[in-house]
């Protein structure tokens, strides 16, 4: 019983993180856009949800108390706008330059959240953010079952939509840009606009995950959006298999599972006297498993499927 309850909780977190990884897969896996500011758009989504739905407090600028679904819609819009602005400014950059720029932007977004107290609650964060439909469920267990349906539903929807998109002509052009941008331009494709579109769409998906996360936890603070999350998401995508949406989801499951399971394992096997060192052992263990995966499965657990036109041979 307890195990089931924990697994449901675990699955909720995995489905939310999967949505971010799927968004990154569109950007990096399909288009080759190196977004090192994943957590920034996740934060925009999360904070927008909180700002729109949180109960009114005199010290806050925005006191709308909107229903949760409008919070989610608002999160999508806000992260799309943020990505558009960032994209317009940075999409001319390539590879490592883009990575540095987006990383800087993510840190900036987190610092804005930390310092613009009237909007975001500053370092104290925002409490009592409404959890969708929580009034209808009596026990935490039934609520979590519901939330799993909600977050997994959004995750499947995202997965399905992105699968459709990357297999569409538009998706094939993204791939062409990734493989050889010069060739794509020579064929008359507007690479800059397409890259921007993929960037905005991917970041909007990340914003959705932010809203779902904050809705689940019921609290948001700048602590939720530390830069390391970007690297965790990247690890999930690389381990699972960049360029493959199934790989993105599987990678999230495996890496987050490893993160949690290693903590459990350490607390089980280490004698009490060494528990304090357990945290360090856990981090080493995670690193080790990741390195081994990459050495033996360099394309990720499920690599990209070979794409040939179904009309060819």
């Amino acid at each position, binding site marked *: 019983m307890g195990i089931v309850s924990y697994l*449901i909780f675990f699955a909720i977190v995995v489905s939310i993180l999967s949505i971010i990884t799927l968004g990154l897969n569109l950007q990096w896996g399909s288009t080759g856009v190196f977004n090192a500011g994943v957590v920034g758009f996740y934060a925009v989504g999360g904070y927008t949800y909180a700002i729109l739905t949180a109960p009114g407090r005199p010290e806050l600028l925005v006191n709308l108390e909107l229903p949760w679904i409008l919070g989610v819609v608002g999160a999508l819009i806000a992260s799309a706008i943020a990505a558009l602005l960032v994209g317009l400014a940075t999409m001319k950059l390539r590879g490592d330059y883009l990575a540095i720029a987006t990383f800087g932007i993510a840190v900036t977004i987190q610092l804005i959240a930390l310092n613009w107290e009237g909007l975001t609650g500053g370092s104290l*964060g925002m409490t009592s953010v409404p959890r969708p439909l929580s009034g209808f469920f009596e026990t935490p267990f039934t609520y979590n079952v519901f939330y799993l349906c909600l977050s997994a539903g959004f995750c499947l929807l995202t997965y399905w939509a992105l699968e459709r998109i990357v297999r569409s002509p538009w998706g094939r052009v993204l791939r062409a840009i990734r493989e050889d941008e010069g060739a794509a331009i020579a064929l008359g494709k507007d690479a800059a606009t397409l890259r921007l579109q993929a960037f905005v769409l991917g970041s909007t998906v990340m914003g959705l995950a932010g809203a779902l996360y904050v809705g689940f936890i019921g609290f948001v603070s700048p602590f939720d959006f530390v830069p390391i999350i970007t690297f965790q998401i990247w690890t999930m995508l690389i381990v699972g298999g960049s360029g493959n949406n199934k790989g993105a989801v599987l990678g999230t499951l495996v890496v987050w599972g490893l993160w949690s399971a290693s903590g459990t394992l350490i607390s089980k096997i280490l004698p009490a006297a060494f528990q304090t060192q357990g945290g360090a052992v856990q981090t080493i263990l995670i690193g080790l498993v990741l390195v081994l995966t990459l050495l033996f499965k360099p394309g990720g657990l499920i690599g990209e499927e070979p794409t040939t036109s179904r009309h060819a041979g």
Partner: protein
Amino acid sequence: MKRSIGLLAGAVLVSAWMPAQNAQAQNAVSCPVKLGGILPLTGSMGPVGKRISDSAQLAVKHINEGGGIKGCPVEFILRDDQGQPTVGVDAAKYLVEVERVPAITGSVSSGVTLPILTSVTVPSKVPVVSCCSTAATFTTLAQEGKTGGFFFRTLPTVKTQAYASAKVAADRGFKRVTMIYINTDFGTGMVKDFTKAFNKLGGQVLKTVAYNENQPSYRAEVNSALSDKPDAVFLVAFPQDGATMTREWISLGGTQNLILNNALRTPEYVKAVGGKFLQNAFGMDNASTSGPTVESFKQSFQAAYNASPDGPGIYNQYDAVMILGLAMNLAPDLSGTAIRDAMRKLQSPDATVVGTGPEEFKKAIALIKDGKAIRYSGATGPLEFDANGDVSGAALIWNVKGDQLGTDQTLTVEEMSKLIKQIDG
């Protein structure tokens, strides 16, 4: 993929009719009694968290040597939150659901503790005792009834610290004070409360300068704070940054009237700055007064880890675990609600005082068996929780004598509650 979804769906169905049985099974105590811990052992708070978890382990050892909980040895299950809310929340859910711990101690950062409360422990009615989460938000949440009384913390809130500091600053005749503070919930809380109290007591806060951690130099912040030539500067910082900043402040000609926060009460800070520059400085901490319970904790920590317990959170974490141990012995059963209620029974004024260490714990168990009331006086002195789970303790004003940390004066519980009344009205 499909298969695992099927499995999960099956598991959900099976469990849907199970919760009813589960609630009854808690009355009988089965050995060992589990106690959950969530602390940052790695990540940016790692260096602080390691010592704090040492302290928690020491308390568990003392509980076990003193007779355990309801005759059972205690098994402490410690999880690392890495300073990340998601990791902390996952650990909490695991402890509550899979390990079925009746209570948890943790965490350090308010940004980790709060999501643990809102998404796991409060809905599951599991008490949490934190050593170190200072944010004022916990008090607000408790007042709104959103913690259900399941949250406690063993360190003085920012308010106690800020008010006591404001009083001593006013007593020393400072009128114009500038604040340099760390830009976290702790720092901003301190600024708000100190400003409120200091204004009420006739002073004025000229300027507040925020800083972000881990920079090589704070010259810009220091210069900005210097510009108004304040009577005194209130530094809200942690030892490393605090030392860098104090050195820059003094070398640029700032006043040596320094007001310091509790985290700076470490020998490292005094050594890094140089004792001779700190002779006019004072700081506030909760009353780890030099009582016998405090001394006995100091000695056992020193003996166990060959290190000084003078660092942030170490005293408080010991108390967090010890008081949980006492409450769990006192509670009729190990349900969250019973432990929560027992926590508040450990503080009636006419009860027998029990202190730190295994012997005292043994004594406490004997008293509980005889049905006598007990009151815990711990590594941070007497501990009293108010309705919001905050400790309203006595305040200690510390200073530096030569190169050593010393005690300037103590504000008793009565003096503190008078002060709070005077300021809050």
